[in-house]
């Protein structure tokens, strides 16, 4: 009796972990830091959210470019891969046609890099949320 209860609770815990290991990275991709918040790492999640969103928004404010899916130059493809990491921010930017202006001055190129880095940092954040979900990290 006690054994079956223990086994059931272990199975339930394993199921929760496996579900969380999918949900946390997915929601973390969509909303930066949310993968941590959903696992009750509130402060970490908030700091990640603020850092990544601020970089992305500053990039847009500096008239940085948003890359669309493309099969051309390798740097354009890598730019797209970086941008996609920002999740909902990237989708919103595409929907509202932000970041499509011609780069007219040097600092706009910094903006482009800020946007790419925001996406790449979110990829790291997603991996961290996954490690928390599988118990590899506290």
């Amino acid at each position: 009796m006690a054994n079956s209860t223990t086994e059931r609770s272990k199975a339930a815990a394993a199921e929760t972990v496996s579900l969380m290991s999918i949900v946390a990275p997915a929601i973390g991709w969509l909303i930066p830091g949310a993968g941590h918040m959903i696992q009750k790492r509130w402060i970490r999640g908030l700091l990640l959210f603020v850092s990544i969103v601020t970089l992305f928004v500053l990039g847009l404010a500096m008239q940085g470019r948003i890359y669309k899916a493309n099969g051309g130059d390798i740097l354009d493809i890598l730019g797209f891969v970086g941008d996609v990491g920002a999740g909902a921010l990237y989708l919103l930017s595409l929907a509202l046609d932000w970041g499509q202006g011609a780069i007219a001055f040097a600092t706009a190129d910094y903006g482009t890099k800020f946007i790419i880095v925001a996406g790449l940092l979110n990829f790291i954040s997603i991996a961290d949320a996954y490690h928390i979900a599988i118990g590899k990290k506290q």
Partner: protein
Amino acid sequence: MTLNHFSAALVFSIFASVVFGITHRDNARDMVRYGLYCFVMFLGGVFVAGWAMWVLKR
């Protein structure tokens, strides 16, 4: 909005260091320490690269 080279590097360093600190270490104390380490390295790199370019230009 325009940022000069240094302020752009400073903003980048702050936010990248926060993310690196949180994601690369396990406890709060180590996160803060690693974040500060990354920040110093980023800014140190900016100064080293700046001086290197100044020397190369001469």
